């Protein structure tokens, strides 16, 4: 069933997975062929060209996030009961060598991570104390490459490096897990951090803020707003990083005043944003691409009756910027459903991972 187009999302869309299982958090391999994702708490990867998936962990693993750190290695965060963003968790390294998969724990107390498969490194935010977070660069084998001396006063909940790997944007809750959100710019060359803005106590950041050439973009909203499905009323915000500009969050230009954002990710060269959201609170959820220079918003999917997952990690750009992986299913009816095929061949009845083509392939960075 893999590779079949799904008519509910638009032309050119290809299925990476099929069958039962709650899938999420797709991560595109650096060679662009395979996509790793979480299914019911365990890690698998698959491609549109092959049937079935390859399982990396035990089924009771409790994985929350997996990112490629090389052609045949994954960094896996989780392995414990899921918690709020920023909750310290073990970090594992999964490797695939000579047809054999192996998973080993490489660190504990990791609050957030971001992998760079080209450089075969990852930046991790680790717990120093309940209200302080340190940053370190790890090699793909888990060895520590560098520990940065600057300490973030708060609980880091997300990291997004720049395409050059010289800077990273951090979201942190000042003072502790319940504190107000700050946005930091971390210079990975000098190891110095700079707080860009502090949000009000009633504002929260949903997911990981994104470094772009045109400032920091993030999905935010009032605290207490449900982050699930149709009730989410988050907006897309932009914070300029140029010290000469007023560094206050403003609604992102180009998406329209009524746009409701759910999740966002910057493209590999940082010039575009993939955004899952609605044009207005009553329109269907779709995948959009926002060109940051021209401030033009293009609908990439043409969804009418599919339910696109809106979790902060439920989208990922292809390494060349010519596709985005998303997770979607048909809207459940609540009634018994009969299908004329084995369960493993079914697509729309379960959350599955799809490759959605995006025009304008990007030049390698």
């Amino acid at each position, binding site marked *: 069933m893999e590779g079949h187009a799904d008519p509910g999302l638009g032309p050119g869309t290809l299925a990476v997975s099929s*069958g*039962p*299982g*709650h899938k*999420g958090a797709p991560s595109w391999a650096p060679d662009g062929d395979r996509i790793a994702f*979480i*299914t*019911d*708490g*365990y890690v698998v990867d698959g491609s549109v060209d092959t049937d079935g998936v390859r399982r990396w962990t035990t*089924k*009771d693993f409790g994985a*929350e996030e997996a990112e490629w750190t090389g052609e045949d290695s994954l960094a896996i965060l989780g392995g414990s009961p*899921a918690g709020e963003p920023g909750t310290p968790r073990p970090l594992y390294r999964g490797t695939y060598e000579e047809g054999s998969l192996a998973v080993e724990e490489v660190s504990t107390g990791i609050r957030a991570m971001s992998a760079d498969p080209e450089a075969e490194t990852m930046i991790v935010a680790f717990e120093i104390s309940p209200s302080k977070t340190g940053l370190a660069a790890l090699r793909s084998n888990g060895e520590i490459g560098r520990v940065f001396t600057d300490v973030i006063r708060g609980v880091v909940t997300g990291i997004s490096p720049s395409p050059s790997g010289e800077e990273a944007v951090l979201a942190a809750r000042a003072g502790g897990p319940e504190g107000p959100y700050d946005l930091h710019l971390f210079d990975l060359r000098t190891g110095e951090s700079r707080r860009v803005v502090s949000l009000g106590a009633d504002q929260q950041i949903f997911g990981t803020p994104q470094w772009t050439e045109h400032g920091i973009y993030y999905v935010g909203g009032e605290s207490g707003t449900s982050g*699930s499905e149709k009730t989410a009323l988050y907006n897309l915000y932009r914070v300029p990083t140029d010290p000469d500009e007023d560094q206050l969050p403003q609604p992102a230009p180009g998406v329209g005043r009524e746009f409701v954002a759910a999740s966002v990710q910057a493209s590999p060269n940082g010039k575009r944003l993939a955004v899952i959201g609605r044009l207005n609170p009553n329109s269907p959820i779709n995948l959009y691409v926002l060109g940051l220079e021209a401030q033009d918003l293009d609908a990439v999917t043409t969804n009418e009756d599919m339910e696109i997952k809106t*979790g902060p990690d439920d989208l990922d750009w292809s390494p060349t910027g010519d596709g985005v992986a998303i997770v979607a299913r048909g809207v*459940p009816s*609540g*009634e*018994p*459903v*009969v*299908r*004329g*095929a*084995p*369960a493993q061949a*079914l697509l729309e*009845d*379960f959350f599955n991972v799809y490759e959605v083509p995006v025009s304008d392939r990007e030049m390698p960075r």
Partner: protein
Amino acid sequence: MREALFWISGAAVAFLLTAGAFLMLANSGTGPAEKSLEPGPQRTEQGPNLEMSLDEDRLATLEALPNQSLDVGVENTGDEAVSDVNLTVEVYSENTALSDARYYRRTVEELGAGRSVTVNFALDLAPLVETTTPDTPELPRRIVEIRARTPEGVSAAKTLILPL
């Protein structure tokens, strides 16, 4: 006059020969031969073929309890009889991290061409061990996968997804 008749009859013969040659070429051309578009008998497959059906009106009455009745209709829509049709029913969770499953099996010894049979299964649809996580806030649905297969490899499958 005789000379004119000779030329006219010669031209007529030449015309007929040429026309005949064209007709022969047209009939023996390389295009595909015409096929009869008359449809064959409906629903009859060459060789044995199985189709399954479920009484969809009764599915809404299924509950998350033991001893739930499920009728599975099996029809041989082919033109040959089949024997030893193995019917298997597997009940498991939509949550693929759970390995718990319940299996049921029945055999239909003989099913003639064009014949059908209804096989009843008493399924235990009581809850399997279910857990939810923040990523899967809704209770996983129950999957009932029904397969029919003969030793010769003739098969059919149905999947029933129950929001129990």
